Every structure is written in C-alpha cells, then in structure tokens.
C-alpha cells in the first residue's frame, strides 16, 4: 500500500442527508473510516444509525451529500456537471466491497450453512464450487461452526446463525464489514459467542462499522465511537473519551439511560 492510499479513508461520508417522506432520517452526517479501523455507532433507536449503515451498503439511497468507498462515489457516476445513477449491475459490483450482517441474520433458509457461505462466491464471483466449498469450510471453522456445515438455519441457534451470517459476508472478501445491531435479536447467553467472532475479526485488521447497543464491546474493541441522535452525528471520539467523558449533554443522557437499563 502506498502512502496516498493509506491516507485516503476507506469510507467517507460528506454531509449525507436522507429523507423518508417528511421524516429526516439523516442530517449532515460526516464520517471517515480509515482502513483497519473499528468504528461503533451508538445512539437511541430512530437516531439514523441503521439508515446510515444501509446507505453505505446501498440498501437505501441517500439524497444529500456524498458517500465514497475507496475514493469511488457510491450510487452515481459524474457526467460533467451532472449525475447519472449507476445501473443495478454496477451497484451490485460496488456492494461486493462491503459485507453486511443483519440484526435478524437473514440466512437463506433453504440452503445449508455451507451453501449459505458458498452462494455468493459461486453465483456472484463465479468461483469453482470445489474451491468455494474449501474456502467456506475454512470460514466456518473460523467462526467455530465447521461441524454444522450441513445444518439448515432452522436447526441452528440464533448465535450460530449469526456466526454463519458473518462467514457468509466474509466469503465475498469484503474491504469493509457492516454490522447492524448483530446481537440485538439474540438471547442474552448467545451474545458472547457472536461478539467473540467480531473481536477476532477486529484483531485480524478488518475494517468494521458496528451499530450496537453493546457498550462493553464498543469500549473494548472500537477505535472510535460515533454517537448519533435524531439523524445527526452528535459526538465522535475514542471509546474512552466519549464514554467516560462525553462533551455533549445528549450523549451523557443516552449513556446514563443505557447504564441504567
């Protein structure tokens, strides 16, 4: 990696705005994520955290500002002074750089754990099935589930399903992993196993943006924490700064309410 590339953030959001009908979900969101960084986004529900994440993965379109991935504008091509929306194929190609883990896992129920992981490489990257299977088994081993390769999602616990979902996203060899409240739908005793996989991933140098309510995880793993409220980024800082010594009143209020709960 040369010096210039290292200095360019992997993801840049510039004054991003998004309006649903008459509700402003995102307002002037600015954010840079460097390669290898782990950024946690915290905030009350309805604060725009998930919408922001979905905009990065283009499951949602943004309508103000711009989002850049590896210096490439997401969703549009510039034609002189005008903008042209990318075709579905081009958007799909941009999306391959990011992996997404959903709150409700969204594993493909008609495929086994192994097939869930090989589906993307075989269908999208056109890998040879044997090669894809080998890579998938390695990924399942990495999330501790090689023994469950032939199980269908309905036969797995929530924690196991989410670990398969992480392996499925990793199989596309993304530059960036997005986690949308990955432990919120889990029984409390299953949260730990998923967080452990994420911790390992962070230690391996994966760039991650994690929307989470797990304050302990945010404190321990993240390089930076972003606090969002009512569609805006209220405060950004290292986990220690933001959580022990928040500058903003709203951040203090939120942290207090989470600590109580």
């Amino acid at each position, binding site marked *: 990696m040369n010096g210039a590339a290292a200095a360019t953030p992997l993801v840049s959001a510039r004054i991003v705005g998004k309006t649903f009908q008459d509700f402003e979900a995102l307002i002037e969101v600015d954010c840079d994520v460097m390669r290898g960084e782990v950024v946690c986004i915290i905030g009350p529900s309805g604060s725009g955290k998930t919408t922001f994440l979905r905009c990065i993965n283009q499951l949602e379109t943004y309508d103000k500002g711009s989002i850049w991935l590896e210096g490439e504008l997401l969703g549009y091509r510039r034609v002189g002074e005008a903008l042209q929306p990318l075709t579905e194929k081009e958007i799909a190609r941009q*999306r391959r750089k990011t992996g*997404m883990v959903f709150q409700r896992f969204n594993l493909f129920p008609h495929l086994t754990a192994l097939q869930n992981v090989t589906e993307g490489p075989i269908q999208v990257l056109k890998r040879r099935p044997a090669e894809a299977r080998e890579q998938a088994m390695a990924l399942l081993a990495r999330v501790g589930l090689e023994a469950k390769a032939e199980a269908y999602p309905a036969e797995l616990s929530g924690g196991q399903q989410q670990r398969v979902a992480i392996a499925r996203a990793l199989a596309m060899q993304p530059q960036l992993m997005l986690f949308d409240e990955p432990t919120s739908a889990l029984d409390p005793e299953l949260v730990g196993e998923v967080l452990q996989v994420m911790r390992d991933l962070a230690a391996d140098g994966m760039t991650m943006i994690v929307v989470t309510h797990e304050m302990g995880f945010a404190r321990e793993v993240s390089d930076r924490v972003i606090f969002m409220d009512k569609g805006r980024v209220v405060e950004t800082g290292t986990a220690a700064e933001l959580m022990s010594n928040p500058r903003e009143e709203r951040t203090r209020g939120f942290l207090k309410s989470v600590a109580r709960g």
Partner: protein
Amino acid sequence: MHTTPDRAGRETAPGTVSDLDISKMRTIRTIPYGRILSVGLIVLAAFGIVRAFAMGDINWAITWQYMFWPTIMMGLFNTIWMSIVCMAIGVVIGLMCAIARDSVNPVLRGASIFYTWFFRGAPLILQLLIWFNLALVFPRLSLFGLFEARTVEVITPVTAAILGFGLNAGAYASEIIRAGLLGVDRGQFEAAKAIGMTGATALRRIVLPQAMRTVLPPLGNEFISMIKMTSLASIIGFSDLLRSVQNLYFVNTRVIELLMVATVWYLVVVTILSIFQQMLERRFGRGFVRRAQR
C-alpha cells in the same frame, strides 16, 4: 359429593388439595359417540355404492376390453401433452406477470393487472371459441412482414387449445406465484443484494426457491384442473381422452362402460401427478421442516 383418594389411598374432601398422582390411577375411556356414528355411516354408504355398481347394469368386461384401446390411448396422450404444454406456458406467463405486477413501472404493472383481469374474467369456453374463430376477425396473420399465413392454416384445434388454455392458466398462475413471492421475507432480498447479487440472480437463487414452497400446492391444483379442463377443447375438435371415449360410445352405445374407462385414466394421471407434486414439495421444503438434530 365426589371424593378422590390421595397417595395413601385416603379419601379427601373436595376443595382441598391432595398429593394426587394421576399416573397411578386407572383412566376411564370416554366413548366418542360422534366418531363411531360417522364411521358407521361411511361404511354403510361405501357398501351401498359398491353393491350398486356391482349389481348395476355395467358390463365391466367391456370396460376392461377398452381400457387400452388405441384411440383411447391416443386421446389420453393428447390430454397429457396438452396439459403439460399449457401448464408450462401458464407458469412462464404467470411468473412474468407476477414480477411485472410488483414493478416500479406503472405500464408493466397495468399490463399485468389487465392481463389477469381479462383472462381470468372471460369464460374459458368462450376464450377457446374466440381463438378457434380468429380467422373471422383476421383472415391473414403476419409478423412484421417476416412471416405471413392464412389464419385458418395456423389456428388448428391444437393451436387454439394451446392459446386458450395456456393464456388462461397464466392468469391464474400469476396470482399464485405473486402470493408466493409476497410470502418471502424482504430481508432475504436484502441479504442476497448484500452479497452482491443483482435482482434477477436474487430472484432466481434466493426468493423463487423459497416461494416454491407455498406456490407448489395451489399450482398442483391448477395442473389437476387443467388435465380435466382439456376435455373442454373437444368443442373445437381437439380429440382428448373424453372425446375419444365419446367417439367410441356413439358407435357401440356402451356409454357407462366407456365413461368408466375415462374415469380410471383420469384418476391414474391425477394420482401420478400428486405423487410427483409430493416429491417436489419435499424437495423445496428442505430447510423448513425441522429434521432430527444430529
């Protein structure tokens, strides 16, 4: 007033709790009078029907004699291939209509709604007659000058039947498939897109296979009714199973015997189809039926 014995066999007064253990006690069977009565009625009715047919004026030997009669075999073959071809056309059209129905483009959406409205609304016999008599409206058919022919030569009983049944089946299949697509969780589409799939790939690999599970039973129903509906095409001169049987009894007057031949063949075809449907349902139900934990 009833009393119940406790573990030690002591009688306890009602209203007090004892350490009664129901597994230690004899259970008195409740007699299901309703069920016994209905079983009795069914057996009686079955006996009556079998007796009536056995003693009735049917010469079963003749039924058996015509079972594999060449013209009947031909009619059976026609019924089967016509059903398969029309159902295949119906499923393809139905799939396109179901996808168009949820398109962002209002023209595609409108066309799909119009198609379903028209081909589901007009009686099937009427549609068959219109197709068969197309030559009255358009004496010549041409395709941008590439191909031209006299309509009467193109619209035979076979093509009219294929058009009539196929387009009609498409209208019904579109609603069935649409319901199936709506039943698949939105998150499946998002997850498919998140691993870089285009909408078409997501539909083919992720959404449709899951929709198949709910689509198959009603689609199987459609197939079965299609097999029986092909007999309607006899009015435009298509010789299906029923028609071939009628042709025979018009000559030899063995009406019931030959109708029984047709009945047997229809039931055979539908039975084979049901078995095939069950196999398909099992195939597409994978992952949804909990298997024993290993």
